[in-house]
């Protein structure tokens, strides 16, 4: 089975802190994605990557950056956490872009206080 693992299930950080959310997949997928999920807003794409060292902005990239130094790992970075970044963060990976399913990690619920 494809496994997408996020480093933390729950995280509490202080305003202004630099926060790293890590995601690792074990199926040699080219594509990796970071979404945030908020009640009533569904899944919104933050950043995605189709290859190592490649990154593209999604719909809501402001306040975030990403890093993909290895194919299996995609990190989301909050440069200076703010309370409006309190959310559920979901990492996903897929083999292709259009025609293959996305596999999601278990999610990281981040609270910024």
């Amino acid at each position, binding site marked *: 089975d494809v496994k997408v693992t996020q480093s933390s299930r729950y995280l509490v950080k202080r305003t202004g802190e630099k926060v790293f959310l890590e995601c690792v997949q074990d199926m040699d997928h080219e594509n990796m994605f970071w979404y945030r999920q908020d009640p009533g807003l569904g899944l919104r794409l933050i950043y995605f990557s189709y290859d190592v060292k490649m990154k593209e902005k999604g719909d809501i990239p402001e306040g975030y950056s990403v890093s993909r130094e290895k194919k299996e790992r995609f990190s989301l970075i909050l440069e200076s956490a703010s309370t409006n970044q309190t959310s559920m963060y979901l990492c996903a990976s897929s083999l292709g872009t259009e025609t293959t399913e*996305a596999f999601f*990690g278990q999610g990281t619920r981040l609270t910024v206080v």
Partner: protein
Amino acid sequence: GQQVMQIPQYQHVQEGEDFTTYCNSSTTLSNIQWYKQRPGGHPVFLIQLVKSGEVKKQKRLTFQFGEAKKNSSLHITATQTTDVGTYFCAGPPGNTPLVFGKGTRLSVIA
């Protein structure tokens, strides 16, 4: 930009009743995918539809893709408590990542 609209946002049904959620895209989709997220869980892939007018069934679930490839539906016959969760449709408008609808949260009253 690309939008995928999903209705209703919430649906409460008695166990045994049918349930339908609808998905509409502002642009033509190359395919449509459906995901289910159980309470406290993460989205899990259910199915993908590719062809115009395609209909697929998974036990009590029936998925349809519209002729114009801009709308889709998921119908559940005789809901059970195990059907509880949020159902998302998602489509890639060309060579771009999946755009998700906001989901329909289904509650089933036993």
